[in-house]
């Protein structure tokens, strides 16, 4: 790794930690950052400990982890397809995962607007992964270019993904209708991409996914750099292209699906973080570690704004889901990307 990449990774990680600390200190009970640090180091009074460790830390931790998972997933997909637009939220992975998770929320819901226990802790992540994988498989299978050396057609991946996402979304809309009002409300809040009232049980599956899969993805770093040069060059360099591609596709899908299960399909993080990281590090592809740190930074920052923005703007005591903030910032960036890609032709 080059020093610039390392430097930026450290910088983003540090910024993410700072924002996380700020996020832990603001809220209905404002706490000095010193108190927050005290609690994190094991001290502090009981009330303060409760607020920080039980209420705010799970939310912030989920945000950091989900940011890492989405961003790395986006970086992998963008590199694999050689298309900056092929992020999990565009090519249908998030929609597929949403359909799975909403199915569990609505169908296993007791009508009380919350599900817990086994269905929530295992059911939602599992259904999300299955839904995400199904979407990936369909999109991947349909966008294979026939003929010698059958490869995935980068342009078609995006378009077919848009179509599959639309189908999955209509499934989600239907699930919302057949469900009980309260279950539907919970599902709708979750669908916007929200970190509201996350508990440690929400963070845990994402933590496991990140801890296991990020190092695995990093092991493919050399192969990824080779793949950027094209399949032919990569296989000449000794990369088993088909196998590596499949493995990375599965890793990317599972990361995005687990993140979706944890916090809903937070929009555009997977699209934007890799692109910005690539720009700043001036690499030929999104560097995984820098992208991961940047993703974490994005999500905690967006959540801080979503949670407090309307109060700061004196609108009222409302909290927005974090996905609204990321969509509002991410969509213009996507439009900018599309514009640039067209100009390049």
């Amino acid at each position, binding site marked *: 790794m080059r020093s610039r990449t390392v430097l930026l990774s450290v910088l983003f990680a540090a910024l993410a930690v700072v924002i996380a600390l700020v996020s832990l200190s603001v809220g209905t009970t404002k706490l000095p950052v010193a108190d927050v640090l005290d609690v994190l180091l094991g001290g502090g009074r009981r009330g303060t400990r409760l607020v920080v460790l039980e209420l705010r830390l799970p939310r912030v931790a989920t945000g950091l982890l989900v940011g890492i998972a989405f961003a790395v997933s986006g970086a992998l997909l963008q590199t694999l397809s050689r298309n900056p637009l092929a992020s999990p939220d565009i090519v249908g992975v998030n929609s597929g995962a949403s359909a799975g998770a909403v199915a569990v929320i609505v169908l296993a819901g007791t009508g009380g607007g919350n599900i817990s226990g086994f269905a929530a802790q295992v059911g939602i992540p599992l259904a999300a992964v299955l839904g995400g994988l199904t979407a990936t498989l369909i999109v991947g299978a349909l966008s294979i270019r026939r003929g010698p050396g059958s490869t995935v057609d980068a342009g078609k991946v995006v*378009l077919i993904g848009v*179509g*599959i996402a639309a189908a999955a979304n209509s499934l989600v*809309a239907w699930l919302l209708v057949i469900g009980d009002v309260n279950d539907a409300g919970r599902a709708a*809040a979750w669908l*916007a991409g929200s970190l509201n009232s996350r508990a440690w049980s929400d963070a845990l599956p994402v933590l496991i996914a990140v801890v296991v899969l990020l190092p695995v993805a990093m092991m493919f770093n050399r192969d990824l750099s080779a793949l950027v040069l094209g399949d032919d060059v990569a296989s000449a360099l000794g990369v088993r292209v088909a196998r590596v591609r499949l493995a990375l596709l599965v890793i990317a899908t599972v990361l995005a699906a687990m993140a979706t299960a944890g916090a809903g399909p937070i929009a555009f993080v997977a699209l934007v973080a890799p692109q910005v990281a690539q720009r700043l590090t001036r690499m030929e592809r999104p560097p995984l570690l820098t992208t991961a740190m940047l993703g974490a930074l994005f999500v905690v920052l967006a959540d801080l704004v979503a949670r407090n923005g309307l109060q700061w703007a004196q609108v009222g005591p409302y909290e927005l889901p974090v996905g609204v903030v990321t*969509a509002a910032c991410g969509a213009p960036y996507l439009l900018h990307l599309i*514009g640039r*890609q067209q*100009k390049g032709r």
Partner: protein
Amino acid sequence: MALAVLLLLAFAASLALGSRWLGPGALWHALTANNGSDADVIVRNLRFPRTVVAVLIGLCLGIAGTLMQGHTRNALAEPGIFGVSSGAAFAVVLGLQVGLVDSVSSTVWVALLGALIATFAVQRLAARGSGATPVGLALTGAAVAAMLGALTSAIVLLDANTLDSYRFWAVGSVAGRGLDVAGQVLPFVVIGLLLAAVNARDLDLLALGDDVAAGLGLPVRRARLVGLGAIGLLTAAGVAACGPIGFLGLLSGHVARRIFGARNTWLIPAAGLIGATALVLADLVGRLVGGAGEVQAGVVLGIVGAPMFVLVVRRRAVAL
């Protein structure tokens, strides 16, 4: 002709089939001599109104989609994909929230405004750089739709009451839509259809390229604006009456093109009839497979339409 017959058959089937089968005799009785029997009530109050709405809105969306395909010269053009429906939906939800929307006709106005702004914005945004390419338009539409969707959900989530009505509306359905709804959107539909009829011939010229069309004496700008108006009006009427129903325009446009070729004067009315038939059938299928509940027409079309969309993408080698 064959299409009209097909539509009539679908119409009859929609009246006859449902959780309870009604024979031709019972249908005829219900439509001509109402004496308040169960069958009469089912047909007159439930099945007939929703089928009429399905025909009307199917017509609108089929034609709107085909017009879009013609104007953008883009096989993927579709109000649902291009963010037009999301624009209308966002406007409606915003209108509900600030209290601007209280009846179906005010819904149409607000939806119209949203649809027109979104149509225009997507077109303008996608046309930066080297002009609007098919892929650029589709992606720009997706991006705009994603952003509007997020804003819509933000509004809906801030107000629990809006959510409950919104979720039923957002799925796209003709269930429970009565003749009053059809009546209120009718003026918009009529104007939209007139504009579309005027525009159909111009589209044939525009298909030769803007320069050639202008050379043949066509006021290109005006033709584009008329088309935009027709698309906006028809989509807005559809969204206001039934919620955002996706893929219908795509489906009708392509099926019609298959049968009738590229002549817009034939293509557009044919696509309208196909759209109407498709929506009636989708509603019917949803009613039949749903069992106790029912699957909304929007969902049926989403599940049928997506493979269709994929087929179109695969068939045409769209390069990015």
